[in-house]
Every structure is written in C-alpha cells, then in structure tokens.
C-alpha cells in the first residue's frame, strides 16, 4: 500500500463527536441504553463489546442512517462510514461506484474517479480490477472499495465497522498504518473491533455492555 497525499493537520483536542444518553430499542427491548461517548479530532477510539452489544447499531446511529429512540448525537464535520458488510451494487464496477458516490458528494465525474483511484491505490486495490463488477471481486477487494468510498468525501469523522474483514495479513497491518496517518491528519476514527491486539493501536477503548433492562 502507498500513502495518499496528506491534508493539513487539525488543531488537537477539538471535539469531533459527542454522544449523550444514546438509547435504542430493537424488538421492544433496549439494545443500547444511555451510551455516552466522545471523540476529539486526531483521536482513535476502539468500540468493543460482545456479540449483540449493539456496536454496529451505534455506529449506524452515529452515521445517521439509523434512528435513535433517546439521546443526542453531536457531530462536527463530514462523516465517512464504512459498514461491516460492503454495501455495493453487485453489477457496478469500482470506477462506477466512485462516480456514483462522488456525484452525491458534489464531485465532477473526473474528479471523483481521480480521487477514488488515488484512494484505491493507497489501499492496494488491484488496478486491473477497476473495470470488474463488484460481484466478481474478492472479499478483500470489496472491502478496500468499501473503505475508499467512505474516504471519498475527505471526512473529518471516520466510522469503521470492522473494516478489515477479508484483508490478508499484510493489508491488515497497512490498514493500521493508514489509521495512524488519518489520526495525524486530524481525523477522528471510531473503529469497531473484536481483536484484543488492536487495543494497543488506539488511544482509548470504549466497551459497550448489553443493556440488560427490558423496555417498560
């Protein structure tokens, strides 16, 4: 993997994300109850917790694609969201995904493609696969495209839900080098993870515990 061009480093300790009392019911039961969490710019936080603790749901709430039942989410800056399952259209190529997402972000077709290719190169996405439809990409390549789409809008807050699924060992290590770089660039990163080894790579660990109390 190579590194993409660096952007100006933000001033430290600026709030990027604040969650206050975030609660969410699923199927009549509280999945999340009174979750408080804060991230500053240039900070990386690992979100951990057992299966079913609501990590992915919390990230979707922060991304704004799932509603909350109580509490507040305060975001400063643009969000980039990389879901656990690559949300791709099976019959579109990598280039077409870049144009599709780039247009939404207000980029011209050429600019979206150029910026996206720079990101894909940095993530080690094979150039020869750019014209291949997503259905025929390997799991790791899909995930690299997924990650590139999250970064396309030059986000201030990165929400990464187990973003290395399908990566080989080398790509996995390079991913964490990228996280280091994003941190230096002043981006706030919230990374959902299960791996204990990753706790050394982040500034803080936030553990989500299952909400035990049933809804009234």
């Amino acid at each position: 993997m190579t590194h993409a061009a660096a952007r100006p480093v933000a001033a430290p300790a600026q709030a990027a994300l604040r969650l206050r009392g975030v609660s969410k019911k699923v199927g009549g039961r509280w999945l999340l109850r009174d979750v408080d969490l804060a991230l500053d710019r240039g900070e990386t936080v690992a979100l951990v917790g057992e299966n079913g603790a609501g990590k992915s749901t919390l990230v979707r709430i922060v991304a704004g694609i799932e509603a909350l039942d109580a509490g507040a989410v305060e975001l400063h800056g643009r969000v980039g969201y990389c879901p656990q399952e690559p949300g791709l259209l099976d019959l579109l190529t990598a280039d077409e995904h870049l144009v599709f997402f780039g247009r939404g972000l207000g980029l011209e077709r050429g600019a979206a493609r150029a910026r996206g290719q720079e990101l894909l190169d940095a993530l080690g996405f094979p150039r020869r696969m750019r014209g291949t439809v997503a259905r025929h990409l390997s799991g790791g390549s899909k995930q690299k495209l997924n990650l590139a789409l999250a970064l396309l809008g030059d986000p201030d807050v990165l929400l990464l839900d187990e973003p290395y699924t399908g990566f080989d060992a080398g790509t996995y290590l390079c991913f964490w080098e990228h996280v280091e770089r994003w941190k230096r660039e002043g981006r706030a990163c919230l990374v959902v993870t299960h791996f204990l080894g990753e706790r050394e790579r982040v500034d803080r660990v936030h553990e989500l515990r299952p909400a035990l109390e049933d809804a009234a």
Partner: protein
Amino acid sequence: MRTGATARRLVTIAEMQGRDLLRRRGALAMLAAMPIAFYFALLGKGVAAITTGGVGMAFSVSGAALFSMLAARRIEPRLVLAGYRPLELLLGRLLLLETLGIAIVAVTSGLIWLVSEPPRPDLVFAGIALTVWVAVPLGLAIATVIARELEGVLAAIAVVGVQLSLPIDSTAAPFLPLYGPLRVLSRVGGAPGGLAGGLAGGLAYGFVLCVVSVVSWRLRLRTR
C-alpha cells in the same frame, strides 16, 4: 445552479441504475418478452389479446421497479450519507424505468399494430404507455411499503392478477390501479365510449402511487 446539480445527480442515478439493469441480460430479455408472450397467448381473440398484453406489461414493469428498489436497499442509506436526497434516488430510478418502459412500449405496440391491425392503433400506444405510467410507481410503492422480496412479489402478483381476472365492467375494477389503462386498451377495436375517464383515471392513479412511494421512501430513509 442548484437545479443543474440536481439534474446531474438524477441523471447519474438513472445512469447507474441503467448500467446495472443492462448487465442483467436475462432479466432484460424477459422484461421485453413478457408483454409480447401475454399478447400472443390470446392472439386471435381480438381486443382481449391486446388488453392481456397490457397486463403482461404491468407484470413486467412493476416487477422490474420492485427489484430495482430492493436490490439497492443496502447501498441507499450510504448514498444518502454521501449527499443524495432520498427523493432524488427515487426520481432517478423513476426516470430510468419510465424511459425503459417507453422503449418497450414502442416495440410492443408496434408489433401489435403490425399483427392485429387494430382500428385505433394510437390507443394501443396510449393504453400501454399508460400501463407503464401506473406500473412503475406501483412496483416502487410496493417496494417502499413492504421492502421484502417474497412479500413484495406476492403483493404485485395479487394486485395485477386480481385486475386481470376481474371483468372491466365489474364494480371493483375501477378501484384497482390498471383500470384506466385497460379501459383505454378496450377501445382499440373501435368500440364506442369516452376515453377521458380511462386516461384521467390512469394518470391520477399513477400520480397517487408516485406520492405513496415518495412518502413511504422518505419515512424509510428518515433518520435523525
């Protein structure tokens, strides 16, 4: 300025949806063949063959609309996060499907014109085009309200199937979405009667289904 940007985004959505659909060659072939197959199944039975062809068109186009929505449901929240408005996603898809539908209408009605030589060929085109106008938002509305493949397909089959089985002069027929188009198609043999009711009914039903799709879609993609 903003209108231009919105238009470019709508075209991008329609383009990407079109690229996706064009790569589904089998589905595309069935999409075009279904109304023709329905028509030929009753060939020799006069106007009935033409109205049945219209129902085949409704099955085909509403199914395409339904699956285009359901295939993209995982990616659409991310597209909204990327900056698209939910309404743009729906309108872009509507733009593509109506355009594609009109192309199929041209082929189907041309074929019917050549084979059946109906006294009112203009009404063949108008009736089948009106079918597309209603069937596309019907598929979109079902997909936005139900949002599950099996249930959605069964709902589409139920609505179009009940319409097919009901005589056009039955009490319940005017309440179903394809009544207007079928009424127009029933006049292609030159039978007497006004057309305004059928045309207006079809246009209104299509518009109402568009509104249902938009409202349901906005509720589905509503977050905080």
